[in-house]
């Protein structure tokens, strides 16, 4: 039994004796005005918040251009030693946009991964796969050595010791038929079987479950069609 002093109000404004009420009206004008004003405020706030947010996170979704950079004649490279080449990965910011690639000729006796048109020359990135410091190639030891935390890689760029989680990243390479020059394409990551993956950040293992824990980024250049 409801409290007799508190009558439950009808949802119709007409029943509540509101001035100007009409048949079937349930939303009072005060309530409508409230909704309209707050809604307009929300729309106005979204109108500058959402574009600003998109502006800030847009680089995550941007795809890079697929470019080739000449690094030298095929005769410049041997299959027993690496040649250090400076290539540009970000144009327009000078030294900060450059990186180093260690390039050699493919040696089928030790390079057991299947050969195709993109790996007749082996080009390794100098990013250590622990945390991204630059590794240095030491020919006497035939090892890549990282100065930061002691990561060591063998002649093929496979992890030989220390904290790195996967072999050194590589670049696509090709021999340009018209110019006769060796060219370097985008960087890609490899797992312990040297299978190609879209580039990952250092420190992200891509063996087994790793490739799902660390998904490929939207902004990486996709591999060329075979």
């Amino acid at each position, binding site marked *: 039994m409801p409290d007799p002093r508190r009558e439950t109000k009808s949802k119709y404004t007409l029943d509540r004796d509101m001035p100007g009420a009409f048949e079937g009206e349930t939303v009072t004008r005060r309530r409508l005005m409230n909704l309209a004003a707050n809604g307009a405020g929300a729309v106005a706030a979204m109108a500058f918040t959402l574009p600003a947010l998109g502006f800030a996170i847009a*680089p995550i979704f941007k795809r890079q251009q697929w470019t080739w950079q000449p690094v030298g004649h095929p005769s410049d490279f041997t299959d027993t030693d690496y040649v250090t080449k400076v290539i540009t990965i970000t144009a327009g910011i000078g030294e900060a946009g450059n990186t180093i690639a260690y390039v050699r000729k493919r040696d089928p006796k030790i390079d057991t991964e299947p050969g195709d048109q993109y790996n007749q020359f082996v080009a390794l990135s100098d990013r250590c796969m622990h945390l991204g410091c630059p590794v240095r190639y030491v020919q006497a030891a035939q090892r890549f050595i990282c100065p930061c935390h002691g990561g060591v890689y063998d002649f093929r760029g496979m992890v030989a010791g220390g904290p790195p989680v996967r072999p050194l990243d590589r670049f696509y390479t090709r021999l340009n038929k018209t110019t006769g020059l060796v060219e370097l394409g985008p960087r890609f990551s490899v797992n312990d079987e040297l299978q190609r993956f879209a580039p990952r950040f250092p420190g992200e293992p891509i063996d087994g479950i790793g490739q799902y824990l660390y998904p490929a980024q939207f902004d990486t250049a996709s591999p060329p069609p075979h």
Partner: protein
Amino acid sequence: MPRIPAPPLPKALQPKPKKPGESNGVATSPAPIEAGVTVVDWLDERTSLSPGLRWLLWRKVPRGINWAYTLGSATLFAFLSQAVTGVFLAMYYRPDASGGAYESVRNINDNVFLGQFVHAMHKWGASVMIILIFLHMGRVFFYGAYKYPRELTWVIGVVLLILTLAMGFTGYLLPFDQRAYWASVVGININAGGPFIGPFLSNFLLGGADFGATTLSRFYAIHMLLIPGAMAALIGAHLYLVTKLGISAPPWLKTEPHDGGDHELEQAEV
């Protein structure tokens, strides 16, 4: 609502009794102190700020507080020092990754009057602020001052700690020398080590897949606009809660039997 006690006036400011024989009731030129009072009255009549200021500045604090209670204020002053030196460093700094950033910092250090001093204030002040935050946090932890009803103050303080560390991380890149560059590369790659969202977080920080043309300006904007704004707002909330809830008594202070009076509280200025 209880009346807020008026601040005790220092002796020098208290009105002196008139000397015998002094003229009475004749208007003389107002003393400078009266001009100040007039200005304050004018402001107060329009803003009603003085009760709030009294509430903020003349609070009762528990007996037995010591120098460790000043670590929060010390951290606040470290923040203000960082804000002021940072604003003026921004007048000379150029977030240009193709060499301009390094050159502008070199210019600040070598050519600008007091530039090296202000830069060093900002650089060393950053470390001082981190140290002070941890000392302040340790005081609050070991005195049990984070307990009811001050949990939210603690939570906001932890967020401020995280934001301060983020300031250190983003500020480290700005001189754009070899150490700044490689430390940031390593830091961004550590971020990427978080499963699922790590790579996206690193992409957001870098503004792309690799260290790019906008990475430096991105760090600069985060360092001098985004985080300081959030920190200023949260410091305001932190201070409001400190004032609202009062300062906790030292844990070794025994509770005295309550006899109706509030003689456990001493009047003090902090």
